[in-house]
């Protein structure tokens, strides 16, 4: 079977073939497994390929649904899952040595929902350790490479999921976004990535990095598929106190096509400053011109605290992380080192061995910010700045329906290019952090290629306005009609 035929498929298209008996879930899976076998040795998007289990599930589904042609929304669809989402019986490492060999005894809520909708977990994808990073170079198990140029990063921390979808090793994937970890890799790999409103998707089973910022988001080749995934995973969960008490997202929330032309789009000036790579500005500006031609109104707005959001984030997120990662102590699960010299010896050796340098940096930063004498100066201050950042967005959305910005100020960079200076790496998230701090939803969509590399555009909406978000994203997608990625993965760069 040649996957090439499916490269522009949405989930509905697969279902049509299933219904006609022209394709079966197990055959589809086999095709993807073959693709993975071919390209993943170079790409390294997967940490675990769920071969037997997935095929078993596929066969079970086929048996149960024989002779039926109306399927649950994700029936027979393979989904790659970022390795910080707990999957029962399937190793979950969070890209860290400290959880090497950890097999969760339970499923995250999103996994339960996926499986109830008939989806099949095809494998677990690579990531920056504990979701801390913007390039997937912080994985303890080696980096993932950008499918468009193997010498470049796929972005992070959901780099594995992004690369897998872009390279068509899987039709859809789940990632997680704390400060940009779904949107930035989606942009670097030319696919769609949604960061939902905080609280829209249950975090039960998502290994926590920064609890007040983490969200699980769909990553897909089309807006349509992102919608399908989002409908299944979103909605209230009694096991997550921070999950909003609303029903799952429904596509009914998406306003009709005609309404798009009446929308006012805000362009925050802070996101279009000199610091942005001119090629990115060029591509996005071209898209904006076209949108104007289509009748949308573009206005300049200001989000004055954009510059401060990064610092506040690097106080708040590591603080929460330093506490969330205290449970990795060698007692109950994961790896253990030392202990011959007593309990403290076990703690120090386990954690010093098990955590990589970026995680250690953030634990130190976070512990410092929360420590006695510094709480007011750092953590409290960070939380106050967060309030100001939220207000920026509230004010902007009083006059605009949506905001449009670049996703990243930089192109997908080379492996090793930013690893020397941590702060350099942090700057890669400067456009994705503010909306995360405000808790508002945003989506990355591919809006073109420059020098053979994808350029992503970020659309931001007000809280719980994913419908409006999807509306414009779909509009842009149709307007641009870009070919869906199916890069030839090899040593030479190809577009």
């Amino acid at each position, binding site marked *: 079977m040649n996957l090439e035929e499916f490269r522009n498929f949405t989930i509905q298209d697969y279902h049509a073939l299933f219904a006609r008996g022209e394709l079966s879930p197990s055959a589809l899976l086999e095709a993807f497994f073959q693709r993975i076998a071919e390209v993943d040795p170079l790409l390294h998007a997967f940490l675990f390929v769920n071969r037997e289990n997935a095929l078993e599930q596929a066969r079970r589904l086929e048996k149960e649904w024989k002779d039926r042609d109306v399927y649950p929304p994700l029936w027979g669809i393979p989904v790659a899952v970022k390795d910080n989402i707990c999957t029962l019986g399937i190793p979950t490492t969070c890209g860290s040595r400290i959880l090497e060999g950890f097999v969760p005894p339970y499923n995250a809520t999103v996994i339960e929902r996926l499986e109830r909708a008939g989806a099949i977990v095809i494998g677990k994808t690579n990531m920056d350790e504990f979701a801390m990073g913007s390039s997937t170079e912080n994985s303890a198990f080696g980096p993932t490479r950008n499918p468009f140029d193997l010498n470049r990063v796929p972005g992070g921390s959901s780099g594995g999921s992004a690369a897998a979808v872009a390279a068509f090793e899987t039709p859809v994937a789940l990632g997680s976004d704390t400060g940009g970890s779904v949107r930035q890799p989606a942009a670097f790999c030319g696919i769609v990535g949604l960061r939902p409103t905080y609280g829209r998707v249950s975090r039960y089973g*998502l290994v926590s990095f920064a609890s007040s910022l983490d969200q699980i988001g769909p990553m897909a080749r089309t807006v349509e598929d992102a919608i399908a995934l989002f409908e299944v995973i979103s909605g209230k969960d009694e096991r997550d106190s921070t999950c909003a008490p609303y029903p799952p997202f429904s596509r009914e929330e998406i306003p009709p096509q005609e309404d798009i032309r009446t929308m006012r789009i805000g362009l925050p000036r802070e996101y279009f400053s000199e610091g942005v790579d001119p090629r990115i500005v060029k591509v996005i500006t071209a898209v904006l011109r076209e949108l104007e031609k289509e009748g949308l109104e573009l206005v300049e707005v200001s989000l004055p605290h954009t510059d401060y959001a990064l610092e506040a984030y690097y106080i708040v997120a590591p603080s929460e992380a330093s506490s969330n*990662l205290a449970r990795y102590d060698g007692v*109950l699960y994961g790896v253990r080192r030392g202990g011959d010299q007593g309990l403290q010896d076990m703690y120090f050796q386990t954690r010093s061995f098990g955590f990589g340098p970026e995680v250690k940096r953030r634990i130190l930063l976070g512990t410092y910010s929360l420590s006695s004498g510094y*709480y007011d100066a750092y953590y409290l201050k960070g939380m106050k700045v967060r309030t100001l950042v939220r207000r920026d967005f509230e004010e902007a959305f009083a006059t605009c329906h949506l905001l449009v910005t670049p996703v990243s100020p930089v192109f997908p960079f080379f492996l090793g290019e930013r690893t020397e200076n941590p702060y350099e790496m942090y700057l890669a998230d400067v456009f994705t952090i503010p909306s995360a701090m405000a808790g508002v939803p945003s989506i990355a969509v591919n809006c073109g290629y420059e020098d053979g590399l994808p350029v992503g555009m970020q659309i931001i909406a007000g809280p719980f306005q994913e419908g409006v978000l999807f509306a414009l994203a779909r509009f842009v997608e149709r307007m641009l009609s870009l070919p869906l990625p199916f890069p030839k993965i090899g040593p030479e760069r190809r577009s």
Partner: protein
Amino acid sequence: MENVYVTIGLEVHCQLLTRAKMFCRCSTDYIGKTPNTLVCPVCMGLPGALPVLNRRALELAIKTALALQCEILPEVVFHRKNYFYPDLPKGYQISQYDFPIGVRGVLEFALQGTKKRVRIRRVHVEEDAGKLIHEGPELRGTVSGVDFNRAGIPLVEIVTEPDLHSPEEAKECLVMLRNIVRYLEVSDGNMEEGSLRCDANVSVSLSPETPGAKVEIKNMNSFRSVFRALSYEVERQAELLRAGKTLVQETRHWDEVRQVTVPSRGKEEAEDYRYFPDPDLLPFRIAPAMLQEIQATIPELPLQKKERFMREYELPEPEAYILVQDRDLAEFFEACVREFPSPRAVCNFILTEVLKNLNSLNIGIRESKVTPSMLAELLKMVERKEIGISLAKGIFEEMFRTGMGARDVMLKKGISFLTSERDLEKVVREVIEKNPQSVADYLRGKEKALHFLIGQVMRATRGQANPEVVKNLLLRELSSGE
């Protein structure tokens, strides 16, 4: 002890009587259970697990704070207390920091008839840790074992101001607190089982102006330990001060075996817990309606009940004090008095025979087969002189054992009422005849001889006679026989 100024504050933890744990649905019924069976991803702190508050735990904590007359804070906020220890699976405890459930409350209790008042600094709620064992068949080598069955059980923490001024006061305060949580049915309040734990801060100085150094005392596992530990510590500090030494703030452990406090070895620096609001639990406001509902469930508390018993039933303070220690017992008393309105008699019988029988079977009054009505009936019989008090005690024991009423017990045992004075007269004369020496002794002035004769009559009637009546008859016979 003269010229010694003692200041004591208590920090008390009570396990709340919920059926499920504080942040997950595991059962709280952990005593005697196989280790690590009442656990789940949440209370074991597995990666990805999240807490959800048990509403009942919150209600019981609020109830406790209200009963202690605290001001209830409008918003419920949880904080994380961060530190590493094997019984703490997440590496932090979910607790409360600057926004406890209640503040500025009051606890009143009595010490030898004098009413005392202790201010309550705060009441807050937090989760319990797991249990560490240091020896056992499973432990081979220098290791310890962890059991998480207890991890996540809801606790209410009650902190007093340092308003106590002697070990006696501290103990009585603790006893009152225990009784209150039992009255409220928020906790079992059992120190031996660990559902009530107490740490104390003791500070001694030789003059009222200079404050002493605050010494924390831990590991007191019974009321008696609390009293002894504090007494020891006060003496220890006083001695050092008198010898001119200065005391430092420290933590000490009570050694039950050696009956001394010993310094806790450990880090010199105070632990930095890095409290911050738990981002996994959203703060929310308590609805006033909820507060009203909970307030309505608070019963009459021990001190009020004691004072009312003293007023309404004219019971002396020591007796009233014992009666109200146990709410069920106090209610039993009142129910009985409603049918047999001689409170002193009821009280005496309860404090002697009823308690004795309860203790022998190691049960509480709730499990007693004897109801207040049944006791009332028995006591009425005694009042009407149908039976004597010592017979009544025996009958009660049987009632207690079998659940039969007084009359049924008597029928079963073949004890009949000796109402006929003529029968009794006959027995009395027989006894007088058979015991001339005793009669002579009595007539010579030996009171004891009379008792002997009464005893003989009682024996002859197998205890069925009313001893008062027997005594009168004997006296009549003996005086007439002169």
